[in-house]
């Protein structure tokens, strides 16, 4: 039993990488993930990545902001300290629409930044999880789980055949802990 955890195919060209994905999929080899330095059009569909639920999260963060502000304003202007301003009702809704709008956006933005950190483990002070540093620079990386897919020579051949410049056998998942 080898200690290899992940096999990384490192490509110099996005089209060759897409070709590599096709090759692996044709041979029923499950791809763990793909890392690229830039967005690749149509790659989500090819890899079968599920649609992000970030928009749903955004809606709920936003609505939380709306409710928070309206409640706060109501408590402040109508319950705790009612002041007569220009003869208007204490809870004069139109006056508070702009600030409600602002808080909706603020909650939405902060919530999304938080969600992003939570899902990518990018908390301050924590080493980022990177499988291959050159995926942040000029290489397109296909990562295959070596424990699930045991025929390593075949994976190597497929990746090389598709045009991989380099195939790495890594004994640990992330290099960044080193």
């Amino acid at each position: 039993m080898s200690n290899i955890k992940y096999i990384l195919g490192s490509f110099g060209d996005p089209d060759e990488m897409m070709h590599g994905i096709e090759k692996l999929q044709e041979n029923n080899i499950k791809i763990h993930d793909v890392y690229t330095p830039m967005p690749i059009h149509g790659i989500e569909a090819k890899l079968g990545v599920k649609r992000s639920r970030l928009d749903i999260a955004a809606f709920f963060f936003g609505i939380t902001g709306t409710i928070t502000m309206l409640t706060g304003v109501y408590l402040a202007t109508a319950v705790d300290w009612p002041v007569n301003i220009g003869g208007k009702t204490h809870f004069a809704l139109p006056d508070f629409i702009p600030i409600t709008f602002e808080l909706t956006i603020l909650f939405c933005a902060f919530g999304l930044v938080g969600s992003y950190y939570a899902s990518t483990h990018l908390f301050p002070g924590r080493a980022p999880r990177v499988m291959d540093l050159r995926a942040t620079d000029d290489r397109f990386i296909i990562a295959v789980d070596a424990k699930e897919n045991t025929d390593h020579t075949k994976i190597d051949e497929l990746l090389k055949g598709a045009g991989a410049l380099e195939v790495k056998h890594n004994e640990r998942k992330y290099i960044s802990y080193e």
Partner: protein
Amino acid sequence: MGTHHYNLSEQFEFTGKAKTLSIVGIVLGIGAIAYGFFSGAQERTFANLLLMAYYFACVCMSGAFFLAVQYVAQAGWSASILRVPQAMARVLPIAVVILLVVIGLGLFTHNLYHHWADPELLVENGPKYDKLIAGKSAFLNIPFFMGRQVVFLGIYSFFAVKFGQWSYNEDLQGGLNYYRKSFKNACIFLVIYGFTTPIFAFDTIMSLEAHWFSTMFGWYNFAAMWVSCLAAIAVIIILLRRAGYMSWVNNSHLHNLGQFIFGFSIFWTYVWFAQFLLIYYANMSEETVYFYKRFNGYEFWFYLNLVLNFLTPLLLLMDRDNKRSETILLTVSIVVLCGHWVDYYQMIMPGIFEFGTKSGSGFGIIEIGTALGFVGLFTFAVLSALSKKPLVAKNHPFLQESLNHHL
């Protein structure tokens, strides 16, 4: 990338149900207008004619604006649908003539703009002397008013027709010359359009209540005409697609149109609210009188306006899948188009009549009939203009990008 082959010389045939229904609409409209005049509700009929003529002209000139925006942004996604806004822009001269006739007749028969167009208002110490109107008479006088209308609408029509012609010449001759020409003229047109549409809105609609003014009004009207034009484009494209034309229009094109309609509905609300909030907050009687009229008799329309133009697109078009769904986009577009009728109704009627008075305003045969008439006219004119050219500008430099558009 898909290697689909579309029939790029496909041409729309204007026959059958669409033609019959639009002619029926026109006939109903003429009937309703005749009924309006003969039943003695002249002023109300004129107000409705102004509403629909203004709406018609605004949608068509925003078609030219859409073309200009696409050229200036060098947008690729829209290259294959440009013939629809081109057809709308092509119809602008007709809409302009109708609008000018309505304004001119309304002015000279004292049915429209009598708030400021009466010369006795300017006679100092006279019985009808109005200091505010007299102060505005350097701007609001009949020759200058009609002159502005003719010049503005003339310039818009000129560019609107030209964009279509250049695109058609591009079809015949190819090359980048006509694209460059359109780009350059689109830049010029946008500058002119941006500075003149607020004044156009001040003149045509805001001067009905000449004592009141709002600097937001021009942008508020611009937002309304732009979003209603986008909704009209979406409706035409979806219905053409359902009739078997424009097979290259995919969900991503609809998605873009949906984003446009969603975004500009929010923009419309933003401008509408910016105008409302300042007046509400400052609470000065010479400004609040505008909303006082709209809260007495017109409350239903006032709130309906927000439901149709803000809540409906906000809630129904927020989701990505909904923007890509033909049925939902069509429904929302039709709601928005009806919503902006209510919006213009809100702008025009309360300034002229109290709600429900005899021969005054209301919602009845005249309103529905006039609206149907102009919808029929719009459909008839736009679809006949559309049927004269192929449905796609086959030599547009970004056509391939548009045919392969994918979000």
